[in-house]
């Protein structure tokens, strides 16, 4: 890492909003040719700092030097021309334009005053080739995966700016292979001398790609350190400002409850979504589901819960047939379901925390039997306390809370119905470290109290930590079941990655 003049040097950056100090005299330096991770819990000030650097916010105080010269970008466009480009988690390109158009938008090559689409395609292909991406650039952007879109966004940002690249949670919706591909691109850019700011909730990834890390907490700088000088526990402590027990489990839990299964699914499947599978659910057991995005994990959950009702097989509850034709049937059977896409399938954004918590219970009781206002308030307050939901009060619209707190509200909604069997689809995705740990602790606690859980997760470490059994899903089939000590990340990766022919 070159220790000469820093590429970007920010000192004492301050930003206040009415009622809060979002950034309080934060220093930040970025050298060219380094990947610098910016870490902190939600609300720590990461995005505020980024927005001050890119001109999305005007800072209230402090100085920013780029290549030694003071800059004061008034908007992101100005920051871009100065050399600071940003790529967000939700790719902010135009999905219905072609890849080439997205890359060249605003500076299309022209020929006699007309846009030359051939020249545009050629330059787009050349640009993407530098990133090891060989795709048909004339197709619309939205025909490609999020990872490809991400790379296109990076390519565009680099070609426009070329000095500093800010990646704001770029890996949040990528699977493991895609993350690898993205990291290859990042390493190549680092070689070319760009300074890269990397924001992520995934600590593994931070340790894999970063050279240095800066931790923020409550708008203040906690510290900046080289990655080699810090370990995981220390980092989490810095971020949370408290000790968190390090998860050290190497293989799955072996204290699997004995006895008869509570709910049995036989030949349970849905044409076009998930092939028929058998599944036994025991009280007090966590069943993990591992697999890549689109492998059939979410489809499994949605079929179990009656969102897309099964068209083959049957479910039985202690020998009695269990009808699961709709979510209402499933709820009546004591099921609960926290979907993967919290925003579109989970929370009711405009309604309050209290209403979101009461909703499933109320729906089950029917409209004629409202939960009395006092009970609602008590219930909301209890869950806010028990799950440590960070909200000023129970009447706050849930859409204004952070992802982790929204997830806790979703859990509270189902816990309020006192379910026997809770299905969690990616319960820890896109939430900050503190909430992440709390949700895992909650999963273990619920299991200990006799609830059965089915948890889908992309984080294999996490599955190892709490699962008694893990179902591996691939190509819309349940391909393997690992029990107890068999549950290791290696075994899961092997099952996920196994050749289909080999498996047969």
């Amino acid at each position, binding site marked *: 890492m070159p220790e000469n003049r820093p590429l970007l040097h920010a000192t004492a950056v301050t930003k206040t909003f009415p009622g809060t100090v979002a950034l309080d005299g934060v220093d930040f330096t970025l050298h060219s040719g380094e990947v610098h991770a910016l870490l902190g819990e939600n609300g720590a000030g990461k995005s505020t700092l980024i927005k001050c650097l890119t001109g999305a916010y005007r800072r209230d105080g402090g100085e920013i030097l780029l290549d030694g010269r003071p800059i004061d970008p008034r908007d992101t466009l100005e920051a871009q021309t100065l050399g600071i480009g940003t790529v967000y988690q939700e790719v902010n390109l135009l999905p219905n334009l072609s890849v080439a158009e997205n890359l060249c938008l605003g500076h299309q090559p022209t020929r006699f005053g007309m846009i030359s689409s051939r020249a545009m395609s050629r330059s787009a292909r050349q640009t993407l080739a530098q990133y090891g991406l060989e795709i048909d650039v004339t197709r619309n952007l939205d025909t490609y995966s999020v990872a490809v879109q991400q790379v296109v966004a990076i390519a565009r940002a680099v070609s426009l700016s070329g000095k500093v690249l800010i990646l704001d949670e770029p890996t949040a919706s990528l699977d493991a292979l895609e993350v690898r591909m993205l990291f290859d691109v990042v390493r190549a850019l680092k070689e070319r001398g760009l300074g890269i700011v990397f924001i992520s909730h995934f600590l593994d990834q931070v340790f894999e790609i970063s050279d240095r890390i800066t931790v923020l907490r409550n708008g203040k700088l906690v510290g900046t350190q080289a990655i080699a000088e810090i370990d995981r526990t220390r980092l989490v402590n810095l971020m949370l400002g408290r000790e968190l027990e390090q998860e050290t489990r190497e293989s799955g839990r072996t204290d699997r409850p004995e006895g008869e299964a509570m709910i049995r699914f036989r030949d349970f499947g849905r044409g076009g979504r998930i092939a028929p599978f058998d599944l036994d659910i025991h009280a007090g057991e966590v069943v993990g589901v591992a697999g890549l995005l689109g492998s059939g994990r979410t489809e499994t959950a949605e079929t179990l819960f009656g969102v897309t009702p099964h068209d083959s097989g049957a479910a039985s509850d202690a020998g009695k047939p269990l009808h699961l034709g709709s979510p*209402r049937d499933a709820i009546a059977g004591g099921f609960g379901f926290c979907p993967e896409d919290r925003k579109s*399938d989970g929370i009711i954004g405009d309604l309050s925390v209290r209403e979101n918590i009461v909703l499933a219970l109320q*729906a089950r009781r029917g*409209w004629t039997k409202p939960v009395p206002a006092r009970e609602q308030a008590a219930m909301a307050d209890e869950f806010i306390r028990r799950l440590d939901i960070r909200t000023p009060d129970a009447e706050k619209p849930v859409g204004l809370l952070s992802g982790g707190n929204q997830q806790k509200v979703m859990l509270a909604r189902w816990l309020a119905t006192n379910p026997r069997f809770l299905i969690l689809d990616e319960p820890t995705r896109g939430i900050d470290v503190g909430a992440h740990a709390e949700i895992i602790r909650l999963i273990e606690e619920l299991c200990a109290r006799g609830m059965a859980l089915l948890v889908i997760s992309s984080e294999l470490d996490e599955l190892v930590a709490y699962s008694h059994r893990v179902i591996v899903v691939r190509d819309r089939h349940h391909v393997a079941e690992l029990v107890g000590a068999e549950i290791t990340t290696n075994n899961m990766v092997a099952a996920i990655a196994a050749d289909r022919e080999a498996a047969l």
Partner: protein
Amino acid sequence: MTAAKAILRRVAPQLLTLAAVLGLIALVHPGFFDVSIANGRLYGSAIDILNRGAPVALLAIGMTLVIATRGIDLSVGAVMAISGAVAAAAITSGIGLVPTLALALVTGIACGLWNGLLVAVLGIQPIVATLILMVAGRGIAQLITEGAILTFNHKGLIFFGSGAFLGIPMPVLIWLAAGLLVTLVVRRSALGMLIEAIGVNLRASTLAGINARVLLIAVYMTSGLCAALAGVIAAADIKGADANNAGLWLELDAILAVVVGGTSLLGGRFSIIASLIGAMIIQAVNTGILLSGFPPEFNLIIKAAIILVILVLQSPTVRTTLAFFRRDKASAEAKAETVIQ
């Protein structure tokens, strides 16, 4: 107590707007607030607003619920015409008052059921689904009245349009009672919350176990029932069912009332009380124009201008700007105070 305060805070902008419009009318027509008793009933321009606003107020009750589910009901004007025609045809056939009312109201509920089935079961977009009945409904009403104004002289039925109880015109009592009843039903039960939930996020609500389909159908049926009540009142008012003109364009006034009442067309949070005040604001504008004595060529322009001002003042941008200035002023004052100290 706190609930009452919350409601007051919710409807404060609407109340202020209504007060402003009424104040404006009082400027151009000084005797506006005079209320006397004539023919055993309250009599005055202010009473006219309450009375003439009855159809739109009733439509606005059902429309509020429909809009809260992120839907819209364009058919209410036509349903008014149908149920008015049914009431007139029934009463002239001599089946008596109670069966007549029952028939008219059931007709409205059936129209709502039709809309609800199209929306909730067939999944047709509400604006398209209700457009069908909006266009066809008036034709159905014309079939019933055979194209003419079907007049009747049944005292009992006429009472609902121009009668009065304790001096208060019946239409006023009816919309007040309907508004109160529906508000109580949705707020004392869990209906209000469930309706808001499906309006904000239908899929998430279904996943939480809400029976959205049944709820949607019920909401459109309520809208149909409200429209039927309005249709009976409109027919009773002129002692005849005018299939061509009864409720014509009132669906738009009802939607406007809901919007002026601050319920978002995107669904979710709703307030029936605010919509009712919205209906009164619209009627106050109408009555004010009539009282002002301007040539009729200006009616629509004046109405549009006033509504525009109301909607602009209620727009999020203007509101935040106003709030910003208020805060600015407050903090400036605070600073001034500290300086003085």
